[in-house]
């Protein structure tokens, strides 16, 4: 199945080509955009194939499963790779107009494609150590993107970001070492069999916590989220969109994948712990957002809060709840990336994202204001937008699991998101603001990705039923890893 390797190889080749090309903006943009589009096309083809023919497996180098590195695409992986393609295309397109030539000369587009390679690899790999390697590929690219074109603010943000992520990597590596010592394999499918036979209660608990810490840091889960609002506002908004849309979701995805194969008991202490963490994450994120006075900082706290919603489904561990979580992840990737791109437009027009200095945009740019309502109110969960359906599914699954406190918290946090987003829209667009002309023209290219992602949000709203069905099927696949194991190891 050569298709499986394409979402990794396309950005890899694109990155190399971008690196060796001479600096000519148009050429660079063309190659970068073609690469991003290539990922999207390959990913959609992959999803169609997985949807019709079941889980796809590629044994790299022809080495059979437990010995070589395996790439696996089940529905969950394939759907997430499609999202990588979508966000890559949107972010690359906005970068053409939104990023200064200095950054582009320093290898901005090359780094983006290296990062995309890492993210696709993490979604597709079927090997735990390989997952760690993709994490590092993704992290090193993100470190450099964070620190590129150093402003003082950005350097400090980058330093926080690098430190916490290195700690997370050390946790992951420790967990992998202990697991290998006990089980003697690192292939995820093989591990799920070997670990079931060799697990000991003491090691089990330690490993679960090590994985939870490592993935929790990446995902931005309470109490390990503080680095995220401290760093995501500093780089250019297009980078923020890329990081917010993809990197935290890799953490959530890894949790789903590793927990489903290694820690399968639904009533394990791990899941009650994760449930509590999710609830606190939701509350802390939205309370934090209420205290902020900057567009991008509000987004960062909202990002944290909504990660709580996506991990609820993992904690409840039923097909419906996990399906709701997967739907929530898809919706959130689209919307939060779009909001960061939107903040890029506003930064372009007004040279600031500080709410105090913004306002009055409704009068000067009514079309932009209406456009902005789609992602803002979708994140808020206003019916009938996709955010409402996603939140409804989470609350319904909480009630179904008799977790009434969770349902109450989710509803309250939903209300707080409405407040946070309504305040955002009101402050940026509605309130009387400085009646000044645009600082710099918006151009024709910059709004296109925002319009495209807003259209996709509307499409997700209209096509919610089939997408939700697909998410539920993906969840069922994840919860019953027999199919995954058989696909990887051959007929058993």
């Amino acid at each position: 199945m050569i298709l499986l390797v394409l979402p990794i190889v396309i950005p890899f080749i694109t990155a190399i080509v971008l690196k060796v090309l001479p600096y000519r903006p148009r050429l660079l943009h063309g190659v970068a955009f073609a690469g991003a589009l290539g990922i999207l096309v390959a990913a959609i083809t992959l999803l169609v194939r997985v949807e019709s023919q079941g889980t796809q497996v590629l044994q790299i180098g022809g080495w059979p499963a437990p010995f070589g590195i395996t790439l696996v695409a089940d529905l969950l992986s394939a759907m997430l790779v499609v999202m990588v393609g979508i966000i890559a295309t949107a972010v690359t397109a906005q970068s053409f107009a939104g990023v200064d030539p200095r950054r582009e000369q320093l290898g901005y587009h090359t780094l983006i494609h290296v990062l995309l390679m890492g993210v696709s690899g993490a979604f597709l790999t079927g090997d735990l150590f390989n997952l760690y390697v993709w994490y590092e590929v993704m992290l090193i690219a993100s470190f450099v993107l964070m620190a590129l074109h150093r402003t003082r603010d950005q350097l400090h943000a980058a330093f926080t970001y690098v430190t916490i992520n290195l700690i997370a990597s050390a946790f992951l590596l420790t967990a992998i070492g202990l697991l290998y010592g006990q089980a003697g394999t690192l292939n995820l499918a093989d591990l799920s069999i070997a670990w079931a036979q060799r697990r000991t209660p003491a090691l089990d608990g330690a490993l679960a916590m090590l994985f939870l810490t490592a993935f929790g840091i990446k995902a931005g889960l309470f109490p390990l989220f503080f680095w995220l609002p401290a760093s995501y506002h500093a780089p250019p908004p297009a980078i923020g969109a890329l990081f917010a849309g993809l990197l935290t979701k890799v953490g959530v995805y890894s949790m789903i994948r590793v927990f489903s194969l290694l820690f399968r008991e639904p009533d394990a202490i791990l899941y009650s712990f994760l449930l509590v963490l999710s609830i606190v994450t939701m509350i802390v994120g939205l309370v934090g957002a209420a205290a902020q006075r900057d567009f991008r900082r509000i987004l960062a706290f909202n990002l944290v809060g909504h990660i709580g919603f996506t991990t609820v489904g993992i904690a409840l561990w039923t097909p419906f709840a996990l399906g709701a979580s997967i739907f929530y992840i898809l919706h959130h990737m689209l919307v939060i990336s779009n909001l960061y791109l939107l903040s890029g437009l506003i930064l372009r027009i007004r040279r600031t994202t500080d709410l105090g200095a913004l306002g009055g945009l409704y009068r000067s740019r009514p079309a932009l204001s209406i456009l902005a309502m789609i992602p803002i109110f979708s994140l808020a969960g206003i019916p009938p937008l996709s955010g409402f359906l996603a939140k409804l599914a989470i609350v319904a699954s909480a009630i179904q699991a008799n977790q009434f406190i969770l349902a109450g918290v989710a509803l309250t946090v939903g209300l707080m998101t409405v407040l946070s987003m309504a305040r955002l829209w009101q402050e940026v667009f509605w309130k009387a603001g400085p009646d000044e002309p645009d600082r710099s023209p918006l151009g024709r290219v910059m709004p296109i990705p925002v319009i495209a992602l807003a259209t996709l949000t509307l499409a997700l709203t209209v096509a919610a039923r089939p997408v939700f069905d697909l998410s539920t099927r993906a969840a069922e696949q994840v919860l019953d890893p027999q199919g995954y194991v058989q696909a990887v190891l051959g007929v058993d």
Partner: protein
Amino acid sequence: MELLLAVVAGTLYATGIYLMLRRRLAQLIVGLSMIANGSNVLIFTAAGLTRGKPPIIEEDAVGMANLDGAFADPVPQSLILTAIVIGFGVLAFSLVLAHRVHASAATDDIDAIKPEPT
């Protein structure tokens, strides 16, 4: 031997965490690299030590029912090799970054180099 290496790994972790809590740029980076090396020693030890044997099944061992101890496990060796290379790259990057932060803030006290409040 396992016990000794376990103690070494533990000491590396402990020293790393202690150094990171000192809240100075240079110590932070040394601490990070110690933790990374601690996890390398841990992978090596946890996977089981085989003395004086290459990671190859020798000809006279082929057909033996129990291969335990007949060859060293090559997987942890390759894992550590990969982790060392990655760790080296990341360490080099964070050293440069720390140097830049130091140059812009003119101090190596982490508490004193917070970005301007907003």
